[in-house]
């Protein structure tokens, strides 16, 4: 993804073929969950956000003119939905810091510490890191939703990784090594 068959799927949805929308959702479900998770830091909430993003996507599909850009367009919707959910949670006092407070008692202290470090990254860096590691997405898959070339994905991942390593060192999660 994306390719011409994906554009055909988008056009089919715009003509009224709902089954094609199901195929698109299947193609993009994992990266969208990763994107939402990068904002919310909660797996269940991330899946809820994607459900809502798909609904908004279907409602707005008629306005999508560049059918080859579906992935990036859907990612933007998903990001916005997740951000709104995160704001609402903070407003309700459910989470002061979505990335530092585990929803359930946390036994994996290192995992919690790494997530806390991810939470210190800029949203853009955190998003690409989660896209990479959430469900082992390929650079091509990441490129499709971020509207970047695979080479650019590689470069951005390297930079984000270096920044995360720096935060982890400062936080004492890892020791300076190689």
């Amino acid at each position, binding site marked *: 993804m994306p390719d011409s068959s994906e554009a055909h799927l988008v056009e089919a949805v715009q003509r009224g073929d709902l089954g094609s929308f199901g195929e698109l959702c299947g193609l993009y479900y994992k990266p969208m969950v990763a994107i939402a998770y990068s904002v919310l830091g909660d*797996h269940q909430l991330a899946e809820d956000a994607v459900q809502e993003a798909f609904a908004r996507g279907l409602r707005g*599909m008629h306005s999508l003119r560049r059918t080859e850009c579906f992935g990036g367009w859907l990612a933007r919707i998903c990001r916005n939905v997740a951000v709104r959910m995160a704001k609402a949670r903070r407003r309700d006092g459910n989470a002061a810091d979505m990335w530092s407070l585990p929803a359930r008692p946390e036994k994996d202290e290192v995992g*919690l510490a790494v*997530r806390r470090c*991810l939470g210190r990254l800029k949203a853009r860096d955190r998003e690409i890191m989660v896209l990479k590691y959430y469900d082992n997405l390929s650079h091509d898959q990441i490129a499709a939703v971020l509207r970047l070339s695979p080479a650019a994905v590689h470069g951005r991942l390297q930079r984000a990784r270096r920044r*995360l390593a720096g935060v982890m060192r400062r936080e004492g999660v890892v020791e300076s090594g190689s």
Partner: protein
Amino acid sequence: MKAQDDNSQMDELISRAVSRPVPPFDFDTWKLEHAETLREYRRRMADREAGVSRIAGIGSIIMRTLTDKAAIAVIVVLVLMGVGWFLTGDSGVAYALEQTIAANRQVRFLHVRTLDPDDENPDVWENRQELWAELGEKGAPVQMRIEEGLGDSFRVIVLQGNLAIRWRPANDEYDSRHVYNADAEMQQAISMFDPRAAAETVDRLVEENKADVRTETTETGEIRLTVSPRSDAVDVLPRPWRVDHTYVILVDPVTRLFKQIDEYGVRDGRSVLQMRFEYLDYNEATDPKLFDLEPPAGAALDDRVTGIGWPQGDLSDAAAAAETVRQYITAKIERNYELAARLHNGQSAAELQKWDEEHLEIRYTRLVWIGEPIADPRAGDRGFQVPYTFELETADGRRELAGPPSEHPEISGPIEHMKASVRPVAGQPDRWIITGGI
């Protein structure tokens, strides 16, 4: 616990912290949980197929309301069908289709409300939409009022002729605008309630034997019809009537007019009430304030009727249409959203800006090309489609061309032209406005 900062250790730590196998997406479950979204999508597809001209904002609200009412119309049809078909009913109810047809010929005023049960509390009803319509002698609508939404999103729309006003009580905002093809849109809406037209569909369904209908008398003396279209009715049923839903209709035993229609769907294997349509008044004296287009004195009004559009001057119609698109794109480049909103019959300046900056996260940067306008009879005698291309900048700083024409030197490949719909302002033939496509 600390680990060495090498690549494999980092990978392992990050994976351990965030990775999670994602199950495949279950589209069938998603569809069940997003019935209203699917309904809206199908309505939009149906409108598009019908070639209905869309008017951003008010138009979509109107059509959504009206297409909801299509369900009632179809139900009316099927009720009539049931009555004609099962004239005596299962319990020997003396009721005839012709009685309702005759009663509806006398209707000059309709007041209809649709209600949704709250998903979490089935005993609580949410008021979705309420519509009042005054009808002329032939059943054509003269004016209409629609109220919809809950809480802060509640709004009121009043239509008369080709003018509309919208009011959001939560922030006391009014906006007024032209509604193109308003007569046709209102007529189409009302026609959906017309039992005479509906009867034709009923006749067809009866002839083809494509619905089960049960007729009973309730304890309070109302006539109750239960209508279940069969699966093979899918080819003849207008949207949003569904073959997998059942519709229960109460008929006034005295007037023979419909009082209420309940729509049932199936969820988790059980029949669930999904929507209720209530006919609240027929032919009741109308409060003239219901259709008042004037906002209260001192109220803030976003007037999108006065002074909108681009002046034609000495330009030909085609040149004026092209110039309007040129001015619109230029206004966007200069971030003059006030002017852009005046040239676009749909969104306010604030809405346009929010759409570009927050939703799309783009910025217009350069006008590349305005093509030769093409006459568009769908938009009236003087309607045009104007091809265009402009450059935009995305949130990450990249520059892209929007609406690339295939013959433009910067673009290769057979890409369909993007075209803006442009026409004279309703009631102001010497001013031009964009009604869609950009």
